[in-house]
């Protein structure tokens, strides 16, 4: 469902050019769960932003569901984001002035659903993340883990086939991180394709497929799980064993 060929991204700031991504060749299948790891500044967020149509590549080819995204207008890309893609952010990005109900409502309004349909979806999604009783609360009245759950509910409310997460557990303690990860795994099992950037190797290894980004270049880790680059923690080994066994 996602195909990148010789994809590159260059940022120009003043006289400095940063090659955030170079010659990326990647294909992601429907139903996959891909984790992305790599050092800070290596291009992970850039990769995710391009995959999620938040930024446009400088060169190369990018097809999403067979459509050449680079050639689309800004408003076409906005519509595609709304219809096909859900986003989860490291710092949740809930809208502080809106209660949970209105937060989950945001993408649904852009989608143009009628009030009844929106209400149904909001309630269903908040139910799913266990926060239906908090509908009228403001984000600031929730814990980080709860806020990320609301963000996940918001991302899923439009029934996207594609979920992108940039360090979704980065601001959470490990217990909450585990529960968010479990939720993502659940969502993936229902058929949603997920790409997740993380610094947590334990979580990364729970994905079906792992890729590494270093200096803007993407390499596959799934086949070579024990590449020396990784500091493999005991729990990570445990999980990778699981993944390898699949």
């Amino acid at each position, binding site marked *: 469902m996602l195909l990148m060929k010789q994809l590159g991204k260059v940022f120009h700031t003043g006289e400095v050019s940063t090659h955030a991504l170079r010659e990326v060749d990647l294909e992601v299948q429907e139903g996959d769960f891909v984790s992305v790891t790599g050092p800070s500044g290596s291009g992970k967020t850039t990769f995710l932003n391009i995959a999620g*149509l*938040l930024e446009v590549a400088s060169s190369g080819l990018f097809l999403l569901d067979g459509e050449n995204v680079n050639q689309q207008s800004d*408003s076409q890309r906005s519509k595609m984001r709304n219809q096909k893609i859900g986003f989860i952010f490291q710092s949740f990005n809930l809208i502080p002035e809106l209660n949970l109900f209105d937060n989950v409502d945001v993408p649904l309004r852009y989608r143009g659903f009628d009030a009844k349909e929106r209400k149904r979806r909001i309630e269903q999604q908040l139910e799913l993340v266990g926060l239906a009783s908090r509908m009228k609360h403001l984000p600031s009245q929730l814990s980080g883990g709860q806020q990320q759950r609301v963000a996940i509910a918001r991302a899923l409310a439009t029934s996207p086939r594609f979920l992108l997460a940039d360090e979704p557990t980065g601001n959470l303690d490990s217990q909450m991180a585990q529960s968010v990860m479990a939720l993502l795994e659940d969502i993936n099992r229902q058929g949603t394709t997920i790409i997740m950037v993380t610094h947590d190797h334990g979580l990364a290894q729970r994905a079906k497929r792992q890729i590494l980004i270093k200096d803007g270049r993407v390499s596959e880790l799934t086949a070579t799980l024990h590449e020396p680059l990784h500091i493999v923690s005991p729990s990570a080994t445990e999980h990778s064993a699981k993944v390898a066994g699949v």
Partner: protein
Amino acid sequence: MFELGPIFRALLRQKVGAILIALQIALTLSIMVNAIFMMQQRSSQMARPSGLDEANLFYLSNTVFGQNYNHEAALADDLRLIRGIPGVVNATQINAIPLSGGGWSMGLQHKAGEGENSIGVAVYMVDDHGINTLGLELIAGENFQLTDIEWRPATSVSWPARAIVSQAMAESLYPGAYQSALGKTVYINQNEAVQISGIVKTLQAPWNGWDGVERSMLVPFQMETRNSRYIIRTEPGRRDELMPIIEKALAESDKNRIIRNVTSLEDTREDSYRSHNALNKILLLVIVILTLITAFGIVGLAMFSINRRRRQIGTRRALGATQLQVMRYFMLENFLISTLGVVIGAIAAVGLNIWLVSKFELAPLEPQLLVVGVLALYLVGQLAVFYPARKAAAISPATATRSV
């Protein structure tokens, strides 16, 4: 479709700035509407016709210093001289000039005697050339005859037997039936009988701020005075050319007097309404400045709140908002703030107007004006927020993942 609900709820959580701007809009509206109202009042006062052929009229003053002067003969000579100059339509001696601010007033009453109700009226003393010189429209009765004209010595206190009144004066005397004034006898100076022998359509009193400004009368007098005025009507377009010619001709014809203050009636009108014009300009300036301040306030608040919400805007974009939808968000937000503002402002405007009306005895505000003011402020708001809204729409969706 429209996100008014959530925009409104979000505003409620960030209300201070919004309320301040709404109050500014309210203040602007209430002042704007009442300032326009006052401007309209003045403009309509200025638009009232004086009844005169203003464009072709001018006047001058004739100050006599010679001793043993024969005023009556000199007046006859002067008028003959002026009327004989080519381009002059007519001329008359007159005691006061409409719009000039200086003149005579008397009271007319139905019954003779002290303590009877009398109606104030401006008095113009002219001869049988008066109506034609001023360019008045006689709508009933007839002009003075030569035989009606009386010589009025400087010490005289009596009044002539006939008078021509303006329609408004006739209406004041005979409400609802001004025509019936014709031929009636009324009393001037409490008990001198005057017969109304004619009615002219319009002739304003010299005082434009007087509430009886439309009430006036002509009496057939030629005056003995050391300081008289002649008013002269020229053929169209020849006034400016004739003003110095006549001044010179009069001055040279008689060395025992001086000719001064040669003034066109148009200048007199301008002088008369100078403060009206000045005040209207000031009011206009107040409106423009207030509107600009409000517009800048809206721009400022919008820029501030957009900068504060950059990440939120990026997130909305990431969740699928098009640039147009982001713009619309801020336009709608402004619409809500403006609505609060115009509601408060409309109430304040009406309140202020009620006070003005009671204080200065004006006609109340027309509702259309309020509607126009409300629409104008909505428009100002939308125009002011347009640029910030475009800035907001230009915020990259990547802001959602980039800014921390």
